[in-house]
């Protein structure tokens, strides 16, 4: 579902800074899109695109932190690199806490910028990959029968087949068959992998029964 090339979105109210950054990114092979204001960006940006946002902290309409919040609210995972003319510590801490990848002070050198952009794009791509994997796992989970799901939750709590059979009021052999089915449907070769997949899909273990 992700588009192939990552895009760097640059938001700054200063036209010459925008132009310069676009050229610099271009010179390093990055694809970039520029926006003169936060509003314009929020209205126009490609929500499916992977990449990152380079955001000027001081904007007439939104300040950088407000925009970060707006993006999060829209469910965007685009990492943000803040640019500022005068980085004060309080603002940068706040920005980093809210998930900024980096906080760069103008004027920024190409190495610092590219490093930050690389990191951000990688993080974005990682995020997208993880999201895809989760989606696949969820699809696999969807193929499980209710009984198999039940067995899965019991398995996740680390019970033995015998115990599970006792809990579900059936025989150990039946549990074994279910277990093999679950492993097969979830495409988990080891039990450890199954546990990891289940976690990604947000399936919780059945709490151990009180004896």
């Amino acid at each position: 579902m992700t588009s192939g090339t990552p895009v760097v979105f640059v938001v700054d109210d200063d036209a010459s800074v925008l132009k310069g950054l676009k050229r610099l990114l271009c010179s390093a092979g990055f694809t970039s899109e520029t926006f003169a204001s936060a509003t314009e960006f929020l209205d126009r940006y490609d929500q499916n695109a992977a990449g990152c946002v380079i955001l000027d902290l001081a904007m007439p309409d939104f300040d950088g932190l407000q925009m970060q919040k707006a993006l999060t609210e829209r469910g965007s995972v685009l990492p943000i690199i803040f640019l500022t003319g005068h980085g004060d510590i309080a603002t940068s801490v706040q920005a980093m806490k809210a998930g900024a990848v980096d906080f760069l002070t103008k004027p920024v050198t190409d190495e610092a910028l590219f490093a930050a952009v690389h990191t951000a794009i990688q993080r974005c791509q990682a995020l997208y990959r993880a999201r895809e994997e989760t989606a696949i796992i969820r699809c696999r989970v969807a193929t499980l029968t209710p009984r198999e799901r039940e067995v899965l939750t019991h398995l996740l709590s680390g019970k033995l087949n015998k115990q599970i059979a006792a809990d579900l009021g059936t025989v150990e052999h039946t549990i074994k068959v279910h277990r093999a089915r679950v492993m097969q449907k979830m495409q988990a070769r080891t039990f450890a992998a199954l546990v990891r997949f289940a976690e990604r899909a947000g399936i919780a273990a059945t709490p151990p029964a009180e004896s």
Partner: protein
Amino acid sequence: MSMNWVEIIWTMMATASLTLGFVHLLVWFEQRSRYASLAFFVITTSVAAFSASELSMMEAQTPAAYASALRWAHVPICMIALSIIAFVHFHFGSGRRWLAYAAAAFRFLTLFLNFTTGENINFEEVTALEHVPLWGGIAAAVPVGSPSLWQIVTQIGNLLLVAFVVDASITLWRRGDPVARRRAALVGGSIVLFIIGVTGLAVFILAGAVRAPTVLTPGFLVIVLAMAYELSWEVIAAAQLAAKLHTSEINLRASEEQFRAVVESVPNAILLVDDAGKVTLTNPQAQALFGYGREELVGRQVELLIPEWYRYAHESHCQSDAADARARLMTIARERYALHKDGSQVPVKLVLRSMRTVDASFVLVSLEDVTEQRQNERTAARQRDEIAHLSRVATLGELSGSLAHEINQPLMGILSNAQAAQRFLARDDVNLDEVREILADIVEDNKRAGEVIKRLRALLKKGEMQKRPLDINSVVDDVVRLTRNDLVNRSVALSTELTPDLPSVFGDQIHLQQVLLNLVMNACEAMESVVKTPQVHIRTRRTDGGVEISVADLGGGIPPGDLERIFAPFVTTKEHGIGLGLSICRTIIDAHGGRLWAENNGEGATVRCAFSLSDHAE
């Protein structure tokens, strides 16, 4: 030998006459123009001499002695007649000259004939003497003899003299004033009566009709007394006049001294210049101001005191039609510098008053040496500039983040463009057009950064106020640029409403920027945590005879009682303010001849700064 009463009386009359005469001789000595007094003196001595002659006639023992005494008696008579003519002429100031000359001529002729014909003018020969008894057993000699026909000459002379005196008296009488009339009646009358009486008596005596001695001395004494009375009046009047003159002179001198004291004690330097441009009066202050002595200044041309660098303008001014004394000094009035003797130029405050006396016009120049005043003004201006500078630095300190942004933006542009270019150039297929564009952008950004730094440097620079014609709108633009980022950080919306083509204001760009900067910052601070959508509105507009900048906010306004107080030093409404900003702003605007005040606009405060255009001409 004892004197009889006749001798005593005649001697007394002679003495009295002489005494009066000497008094008036003294008067004449004092006032040589009083010829009447001199004439009177001659009359009195002649009367005294005549009285002696008359006495010897009365006491003559032989006809020959009588004839001789009578002959010699004609000398004083002639002198008396001539003196009367002179007296009337000088004292009355009237009478026909030809009558005077004729009378004098006949009198001389009488004297001549007196000595050349017969025994004297009256007798061919005195043959005998008769003795007529007088009172007290004394007898006076009376001549008997053949009268001379030449006597007619004497009588004509007498008639001419009478005619002259009558004519002079009438003329005087006609002048009408009481003194003249009295004089004409008294002197003229007594002379005329006496001469007519004497002549008549002489005719009778000498004709032998009356046997009596010739007793003329008392009559002469009457004339002398009348004249003396008149002359005394004149002397008294003269004395009164002199006393009056003296009083008025004392008054004059007193007022002159007062005037001098005033002129010399006024704090200002005073010059009085006539319409030829010459200094006619100075005071010690003027001498001190210009460094010249009184005698060096009085009589010199006033151009001496005007610095050369505008003397040319001054002279051309003088050559114009209206080159009167006032115009001659106008250049000083404009330039307000005076030239000291040592060549230095003294700043002066100058007031001119034209004055007109009966026969001349002057210009009174009052100069005040304002060197000290100027120095104080300069010191005050320096202090003001220093405080303004400190306040500017403080303001810029508050704005530092915003200013860093202003500089970093173009630097960012430059750096990214330059590094992009380096990368493009490192490629095999170099797009030179792209690189050219990049370089152009770098130049632009560089200029932009340079502008910001220039503005900052100007604001941070410590310097004197330098006024020049300014476009108020450009001041606003500069301030908007400087504060833009700060306002963004504070989320303040700034709007401007600039009237185009405003007349320029004569002022210092930096100082006015500072004022506006302060006003904008104050507006922002007033709205901090007070309003949700803070707004600042800057407006420039024309007013009646001036230009106005106003800065309005929505910060709730200022309590009416504080509208004026906020401009006082150390008064602040801010938590951390020191309360100098607005006071410095006002000082600056005052130095521009403008006005700075605050008003409430309903939702907040509006601070207005007005400049009147008439001030720029200076």
